[in-house]
């Protein structure tokens, strides 16, 4: 419980630091990043409603599809994957990479929606296919970004550039949490309590790591001047 609340706290700090960073560097990708952090915080707070279904005033939801908050998590997932795939587009200069990422986003959106419609488990667990596809596409986007970094001279100043920190965080987060999400249907104390504790430990640990990296990134880039302005405005 406390661990869960602590994560919300971390997210809030990350959002606020991001806001602070945005004051200094008002570029469009930073705007979307801070917006996304805000949405994340808000959506996680909203997800807490499931706690009140069992122990509180929302008990009338018990037995309905909305008893658990997986449906909300699935919607948030899709937005999250789409954000990460498109965030790194701002920092690419090769036209073919950008075109590929655009097409791939559309494909991902279609596949996710199809999965939601046809799997029937939208309210019961995290959608597995869109999780795997989303993770792989995020990797692709980050790979394009890293190759671009290699080819330019900006790799010398990479410690000061914010997208690098975001990429490291996103990479670790998606790599480690996707396998757990695939088994999200086992997340129930009546089926396998040891899995529940493993799940919670890993997810919380990775979340702490992710938001720490974000906060560190914002703070470090706040102190030094951003050498890296996005190449164009979409």
């Amino acid at each position: 419980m406390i661990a869960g609340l602590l994560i919300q706290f971390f997210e809030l700090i990350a959002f606020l630091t991001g806001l602070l960073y945005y004051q200094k560097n008002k570029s469009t990708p930073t705007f979307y990043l801070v917006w996304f952090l805000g949405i994340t915080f808000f959506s996680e707070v909203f997800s807490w409603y499931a706690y009140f279904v069992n122990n509180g005033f929302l008990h009338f939801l018990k037995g309905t599809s909305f008893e658990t908050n997986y449906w909300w998590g699935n919607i948030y997932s899709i937005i999250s994957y789409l954000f990460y795939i498109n965030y790194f587009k701002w920092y690419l200069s090769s036209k073919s990479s950008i075109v590929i990422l655009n097409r791939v986003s559309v494909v991902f959106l279609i596949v996710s929606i199809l999965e939601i419609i046809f799997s029937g488990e939208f309210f019961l667990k995290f959608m597995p296919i869109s999780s795997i596809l989303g993770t792989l596409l995020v990797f692709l986007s980050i790979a394009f970004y890293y190759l671009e970094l290699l080819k330019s001279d900006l790799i010398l100043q990479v410690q000061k550039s914010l997208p690098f920190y975001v990429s490291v965080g996103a990479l670790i987060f998606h790599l480690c949490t996707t396998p757990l999400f695939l088994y999200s249907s086992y997340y129930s104390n009546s089926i396998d309590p040891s899995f529940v504790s493993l799940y919670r430990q890993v997810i919380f640990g990775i979340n702490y790591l992710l938001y720490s990296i974000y906060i560190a990134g914002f703070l470090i880039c706040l102190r030094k001047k951003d050498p890296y302005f996005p190449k164009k405005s979409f």
Partner: protein
Amino acid sequence: MLTEKGPLLPQEKLLIVYFIAVLLFFTIFSIVFVVAFQRRKNKFLKERYEAEQRYQRELSDSQIEIQEQTLKNIAWELHDNVGQLLSVANIQLNVLMNAIPTSFHDQVSETKSIVQETVQEIRTLSKVLNNDVVLKNGLLKSLQMELDRFNRLDYLKATLKISGDIVPLNNASEIIVFRILQEFLSNVIKHAKASKLFVHLDYQEKALEIVAEDDGVGFDVSQKTNSSGMETMHSRAELLNAKFSIVSEIGKGTRLFIKYPYKST
């Protein structure tokens, strides 16, 4: 017996797919990354090498410019100062002629003619040193003048042979070619103790081939590689993109070979 309890759950299959996909992705990405890294490194090294080449070329260029300027100054000094002084000496001798008894006239006449010859030689020498004059006359005429000067002064017997259709080179190249030859010729005069000097300019279809030979004492090529005269001749030839070599054997004379490809403009 070791058997599984049932078919794989869909989650387990998805997990396997996930791990395979991730491993595949990272393997391919690592390979692409390493290849791109190597290419980038090579490009960087090549750029650095080319920058160094350019720098060396510019250094040679400025060195040559300084040398030419110095030669010009010397030429002016010779022509103006020394020439003037000798003219004054000539006048003084004329005055002397009128003041001495006739039995000394022959001696004084001889002295006068020697002084006049000196003035001539200095004029020719200063012409040869001065860039603008070399440019105006062109490579062939300047070369001919220099060899004639050697013949006149009885240093050695020099002949110039020209074959093929004469192709005029651009001004800068003509001067550089002339200076290379001049350096070689002055080395011949100073060290070779030669009696004959033969220079052949062969205007071929794509290049100008120059061969200069003397029948002097020669030198040991492996020993003299540090002399600055050789270095300048070498770097000048490099500036022209010309092939350049000096062959010599003790007792058998020295041979200079230059092949200068015509510029394509």
